């Protein structure tokens, strides 16, 4: 059972939006009293995912939510785009796999940094990635 306490929706269409988004996310992490290490992990993971969205789908939207579950507060981020989608998710989740010129750490790295990671993608329709980071998780 998870209760949404507060939420905010942002669009990421250009590089500078990423900076605004990271700052907004920082405010949310401070609001729920997340530790500095967890703040850094979550914002780094979010930075990877928002860059992916810009690079591969030309942009998209992020929903930031303060959620309550597992007897503590946390942040849930939902990245959704209407880009080309990911044909082979298993492959995309492997370290070192990249269709672009990056290091291929984005998706698997982001997964390691958060408490919960869920990815859904349909080729030709888009990708939705949901991550949760608990305050003390």
């Amino acid at each position, binding site marked *: 059972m998870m209760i949404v306490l507060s939420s905010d929706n942002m669009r990421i269409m250009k590089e500078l939006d990423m*900076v605004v988004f*990271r700052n907004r996310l920082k405010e949310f992490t401070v609001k729920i009293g997340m530790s500095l290490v967890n*703040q*850094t992990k979550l914002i780094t993971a979010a*930075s990877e995912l928002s*860059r992916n969205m810009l690079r591969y789908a030309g942009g998209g939207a992020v929903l930031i939510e303060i959620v309550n579950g597992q007897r503590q507060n946390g942040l849930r981020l939902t990245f959704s785009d209407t880009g080309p989608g990911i044909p082979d998710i298993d492959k995309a989740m492997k370290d070192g796999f990249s269709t672009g010129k990056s*290091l291929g750490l984005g998706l*698997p*790295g*982001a997964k390691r940094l958060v408490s919960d990671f869920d990815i859904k993608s349909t080729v030709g329709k888009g990708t939705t990635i949901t991550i949760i980071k608990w305050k003390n998780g």
Partner: protein
Amino acid sequence: MDKIPILKIGHFLMVAIQVDLYDRLALTLESDLVQAVSKTGAKGVLIDISSVSIVDSFMGRILGNIAGMSKVLDAETVIVGMQPAVAITLVELGLPLKGVQTALNVEKGMELLQKKIQFTEEDIDDDSTLQ
């Protein structure tokens, strides 16, 4: 467009990143710095990231690139002042910045660079006494 200033101190170039890095700014820094190394013949590059709270895989790659490119141009790079939370995150992300020298702070970074180029400096001194 924003630019990160590059300072020349003796044989070294020094950069203190004090703003939120976005991708284009990081790329501009990379090319500016490499050009500055070539132009000034600097023997060392010191990058202070103590005000940087987020280093993701892209910025990590840029830092690695700067070190690699400078090395080819005969300059050592030292990254100083990484915040502990950033270090934890980078390793968990899977980017331990292999091949990039680090030091705790600017002072220690300077010492490390001095040590690294000592031999080269001795060579230069020898040359000047010959003339």
